[in-house]
């Protein structure tokens, strides 16, 4: 991991096209601004990890014999 020190208002450039800026320091909280092309997804890591894990758990090679039950109000024809 490359570790750099930045003051509020300073930035880091990645791959010549992604800019990470330290917008503000607020006690324990660092406000980070990210400029990236729209084909570069940016996520908070902990949420990314959880959703990635959920996606991997969900992908299936087999078709289930029965599908989950949905809440009653959603029953077709009701």
């Amino acid at each position: 991991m490359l570790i750099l020190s930045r003051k509020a208002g300073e930035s880091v450039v990645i791959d010549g096209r992604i800019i990470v800026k330290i917008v503000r320091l607020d006690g324990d909280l660092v406000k980070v601004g990210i400029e990236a092309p729209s084909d570069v997804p940016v996520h908070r890591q902990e949420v990314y990890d959880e959703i990635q894990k959920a996606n991997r758990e969900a992908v299936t090679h087999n078709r289930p014999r029965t599908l989950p039950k949905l809440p009653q109000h959603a029953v077709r024809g009701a």
Partner: protein
Amino acid sequence: MSTVVETPQVNTITVRLPLGLLGFEHIKSYWLISNPEEEPFAWMQVPDEGDLAFLVVPPAAVLPDYSPVLSDDDVAFLAIESPDDVIIYNIVTIRPDGTSSVNLKGPIVINRHSMTGKQVVLANSPYLIQHPLGSA
């Protein structure tokens, strides 16, 4: 005299995900397969890898008042001009023990006109990544 056997029409349409799904970023395109017998569930299947697929469901079938708030970036990315442009599918997990859940925190938001979509992360919403469903 001939007998006409009516088979349910399975509808298949291609959905492009330029950024893929989280953890599956290399897969940019899926077949969205809807079988009327499985409604409202549908399948997002990886083209040419017939056995790799995600079970999905429109969130209104789970939570009628589901209202994800999209960021300006996501709206721009998907070229959304009005709520009518949007269709949403959420990924369902069925576990080996038969319990199941649906990911309401990471919906797949699709522009119905371009059939281009994105898995959006609703970071500040109260929705769960594992919203429980009834057992399969």
